[in-house]
C-alpha cells in the first residue's frame, strides 16, 4: 500500500500539472476541441448512413459511441505521454529524480493526470451528442463505465510504453506520442466487427484489450447484452500490459541512470 508520504508526492506531481492546466485556457479548450470535432464529423456520417445502411440504422449511436470511446483511448495515451514529455521539455527530470519521488509514484501521478485530461476532453463531446444528434451515450449505463475504464487503462499502457522509449531515446522519439496509438487502431475494430479482419489478424486483435471493448460495445447496442466474457478478457489483458509497461518504464529508468540520460534530457 502507498504510504502517506508517497501519496503526498503523487499529489505534488498532480498539483504541478494542475497549475499548468489552470493557467492556460487554450490548453483546456484544445483538450475538448478534437473530441468535439470528431463527434460532429461522425455525427453527420451517421446521419447519412442511417438512410443508406441497415447496419447503422439498427443502432443509431454505434458510430458516435465508437468515436467517443476511441477518443478516450487516444486521450488517455496522450495524457500519460504528454505529461511525461512535458518534464523533458522543461528539463525538469533531473530535479524530480534527485527528490524523494520514486518512479512508481511518477507513474501514479501520470495515470491520474491522464484520467483527468480524458474526462476534460470527452465530457463536453458526450453531452453535445444529445442536442446535436439525439444520442445520449450515458444511457449505456454500467457498460459505458466498464468500456471507459478498460480503454483508459489501455491508453495508460501505450502512454507508459511511449514514455519509456522517450526516456531511453530522447525527444527524437516524441512523435510516438501521437503516432504510436494508431498502430493498434486498425486491429482495435473501432468501427467494424472483429469478423471483418482476416483470421490471422483477429488473433492479434484479440490479444489487445481494445478489440473486446469495441465488440462489447456493439453487443450492448445491437443486442442489449453486456458480454462479461469480453469485459474480463479486456481487463485481464490490461492487467498484463500495465504490468509490462510499468516494468519497461522502470527498466528504461535504470538504463537512463546508467547512461547519464537524466541530466541530458531537454530541448
Amino acid at each position: 500500500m502507498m504510504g502517506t508520504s508517497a501519496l503526498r508526492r503523487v499529489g505534488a506531481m498532480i498539483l504541478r500539472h494542475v497549475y499548468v492546466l489552470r493557467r492556460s485556457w487554450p490548453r483546456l479548450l484544445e483538450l475538448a476541441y478534437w473530441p468535439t470535432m470528431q463527434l460532429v464529423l461522425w455525427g453527420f456520417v451517421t446521419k447519412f448512413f442511417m438512410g443508406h445502411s441497415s447496419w447503422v440504422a439498427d443502432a443509431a449511436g454505434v458510430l458516435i459511441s465508437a468515436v467517443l470511446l476511441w477518443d478516450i483511448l487516444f486521450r488517455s495515451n496522450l495524457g500519460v505521454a504528454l505529461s511525461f514529455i512535458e518534464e523533458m521539455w522543461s528539463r525538469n527530470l533531473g530535479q524530480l529524480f534527485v527528490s524523494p519521488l520514486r518512479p512508481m509514484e511518477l507513474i501514479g501521478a501520470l495515470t491520474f493526470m491522464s484520467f483527468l485530461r480524458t474526462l476534460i476532453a470527452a465530457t463536453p463531446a458526450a453531452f453535445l451528442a444529445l442536442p446535436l444528434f439525439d444520442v445520449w451515450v450515458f444511457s449505456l449505463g454500467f457498460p459505458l463505465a466498464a468500456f471507459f475504464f478498460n480503454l483508459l487503462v489501455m491508453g495508460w499502457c501505450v502512454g507508459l510504453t511511449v514514455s519509456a522509449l522517450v526516456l531511453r531515446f530522447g525527444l527524437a522519439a516524441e512523435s510516438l506520442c501521437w503516432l504510436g496509438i494508431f498502430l493498434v487502431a486498425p486491429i482495435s475494430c473501432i468501427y467494424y466487427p472483429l469478423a471483418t479482419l482476416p483470421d490471422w489478424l483477429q488473433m492479434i486483435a484479440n490479444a489487445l484489450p481494445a478489440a473486446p471493448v469495441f465488440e462489447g460495445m456493439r453487443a450492448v447496442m445491437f443486442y442489449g447484452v453486456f458480454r462479461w466474457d469480453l469485459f474480463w478478457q479486456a481487463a485481464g489483458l490490461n492487467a498484463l500490459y500495465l504490468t509490462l509497461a510499468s516494468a519497461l518504464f522502470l527498466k528504461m529508468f535504470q538504463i537512463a541512470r546508467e547512461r547519464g540520460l537524466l541530466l541530458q534530457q531537454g530541448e
Partner: protein
Amino acid sequence: MGLGSEGSAASNGTDPPEPPFAMALNSSHPVIVADGLGKRFGDVIAVDSMSFQVRPGETVALLGGNGAGKTTTMAMLLGLLTPSAGQVRIFGADMVHDRYKVLARMNFSSPYVDLPRRLTPRENLTVYGHLYGVRSVAARVETLVRDMEMEAFVDRPMGTLSAGQDTRVALAKALMNSPEVLLLDEPTASLDPETGDRMRGYLEGYRAETRAAILLASHNMAEVERICDRVLMMRDGKIVDAGSPSALIGKYGRENLEEVFLHIARDGEVMGE
C-alpha cells in the same frame, strides 16, 4: 538577506529519517563518502577512482576545467548516475541501492536542469516542498522568498524571469527542505556581483547555522577562496590535488586560486606533498 528562522535540516519538518541513516550532524563522521568512484561511458573515462569525504559543516569545492568530471561526480553523488566502479555513501546509505532513505535530507541546484517554465517560482517551490515532505510548505516558501529577495517576481511565470532571477529560484528550491547535504553546481552563475556576494553570504550563514555539508562546483575562484574550506582539484576525471585554498596557493607559489587552477588545468606539474 538573513537566514530563515526554520532552522536546519532534520528539524525543519521533513519526515524524520530512520536509523542507521539518522547520522547526527554534530558528529564528526563524514556525511559524504566517495570511495574509488569511477564512471566510464564506452571508451571514455569520465571519472577515475575518486575518493574523498565531506564532513558536517564543511564546504568543499570541486574545481577543474570543462570535461574534468565535476558534473558527472555530482550526478553520481545524487544517485542520478550509476557508478561504473566504487561507491558513494551519504549518511551511510549506498546511493545506488538506498538513495530514497536519504534524498529528503539532500538537495542540489545545477544549470543543467531547470524548473518548469510555465509555473511561477511560488508554484515550483510549493510542488518541491511537497515532494520533499516539508511540513509547513507555505511558511517555508515565504521564508525563502524573503531570504532570496524574490518578492518582485515570485508570482510571475519562470519563463519570463532573467537568468539571475532563475538562479535565485534554483537556489531557493535547493534550500526548500533545509538540506543537510547541499550539492551546488555553479551556484552563483548569472548573478550580478552584488547579488552573488549576498548569496555567498547567505550560504556561509546557512552552513554556520545548520552545519550542513556543502559540495560545490564553480568556476568563480574568488567565490571558492571565500567560502570553501577545502578544494579538490580535478583533471581528466581524477583528483590531482587537494587542500585548503590558502594551502594550495602557498604550495604552488601563486598569488591566488585562479592561478593555481590555470596551472593545473593547463597540464602543469602537480606538486607532491
